[in-house]
């Protein structure tokens, strides 16, 4: 998915993608090796989200340049707009956030706002649920979920402050 997002900016070949990934995420991410990148690119091509082209170079061996298909572009937009879920949310969301500047697919503030709205709705549901439960163990479970949500919301606020 991040590759797709990167390609949204401009077509690139494998090595360029690798260096871009390293640039954006730096040490926060273990950089995938070039082999993995090519495997992923091939899979994306098989799925019809990217297409490749060979570019003839005079002094070097031919390199394969990949670019997004329309389907691929749609997938990126859909991915970005979709609110993230689950424990990997931070990673996924943060990825979207970091990439969004490059991809120019949507504004960062909108991203944060949509995620916040989603969380608020969840918070409300959880609170309503908690009001109906009186056994301590399930209530604690719900409390835990609420607290995690609040922490995530706080983190959203920090993102907003820092990145905007």
């Amino acid at each position, binding site marked *: 998915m991040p590759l797709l997002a990167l390609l949204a900016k401009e077509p690139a070949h494998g090595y360029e993608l690798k260096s871009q990934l390293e640039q954006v995420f730096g040490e926060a991410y273990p950089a995938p090796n070039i082999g993995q990148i090519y495997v992923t690119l091939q899979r994306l091509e098989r799925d019809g989200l990217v297409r490749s082209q060979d570019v003839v170079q005079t002094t070097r061996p031919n390199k394969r340049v990949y670019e997004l298909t329309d389907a691929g572009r749609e997938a990126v937009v859909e991915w970005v707009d979709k609110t993230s879920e689950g424990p990997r949310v931070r990673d996924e969301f943060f990825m979207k956030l970091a990439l969004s500047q490059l991809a120019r697919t949507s504004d960062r503030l909108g991203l944060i706002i949509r995620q916040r709205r989603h969380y*608020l*709705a969840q918070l409300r*549901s959880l609170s309503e649920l908690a009001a109906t439960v009186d056994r301590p163990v399930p209530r604690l*479970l719900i409390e835990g979920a609420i607290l995690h949500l*609040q922490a995530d*919301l706080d983190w959203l606020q920090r993102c907003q402050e820092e990145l905007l």
Partner: protein
Amino acid sequence: MIGSDGTVLLRARSLNKIFAGEGVVVHAVREVDLSLANGEFVAVTGPSGSGKSTLLHMLGGLEKPTSGEIWLEGKRVDGLSQARWAMLRRRHIGFVFQFFNLVSNMTVADNVELAALMGGASRKQATARRRELLGELGLAAKADAAPARLSGGEQQRVALARAMANRPALLLADEPTGNLDSAATTAVLGLLARAHADGQGILLVTHDLRVACTADRVISLFDGMVVDDAPMTIPHRPMLLPDVLKLRG
């Protein structure tokens, strides 16, 4: 607008507030537009320093806007004198603060009755209304106590009673649960929900999102500006325990 009759109760346009003093100029509220319908429950949220309280104070006439318009029940109010605002606050606006809600030298009963008297009730009417309100809150026993003798939660509940003594169209609350423990918070939120169900229009300022999410609509402020103003999305089905487990993966 959930549960409202659609007419606009409160409307603010291009509100600004600039504090200047001792070499520091602070633009606390920037070009804020908002509106509240009759019976609507809106929460204004944001981090410390986002200007929420200042906005609330302006909407209640406690602070004069540097520029902008405020309309209450169809009438322009931002330029009113203090005296006029005071009269509005008797019957049309109720206030609840984070603390100092009750006049310290009067009993609980007196506090509530005073509000009723200000609203034009006779002595008998004021006493009856006080009994009704305190009874609903379960605080009838503490009617003759001094405010200092009550716990924080009890004080806030009395404050709510006082604010709603005259059934004002608009209830303005500034961090009403900021000072309370979770049990008291729940109680106060319950009161607000009940009032809302009865058709009370509420504008609540809070930094606690758990409180904010109980409203119909949440307005997010950041650095004096509105960054989000959206109704609370209602999930198609209520959450169940298994969903909670899934949340955490």
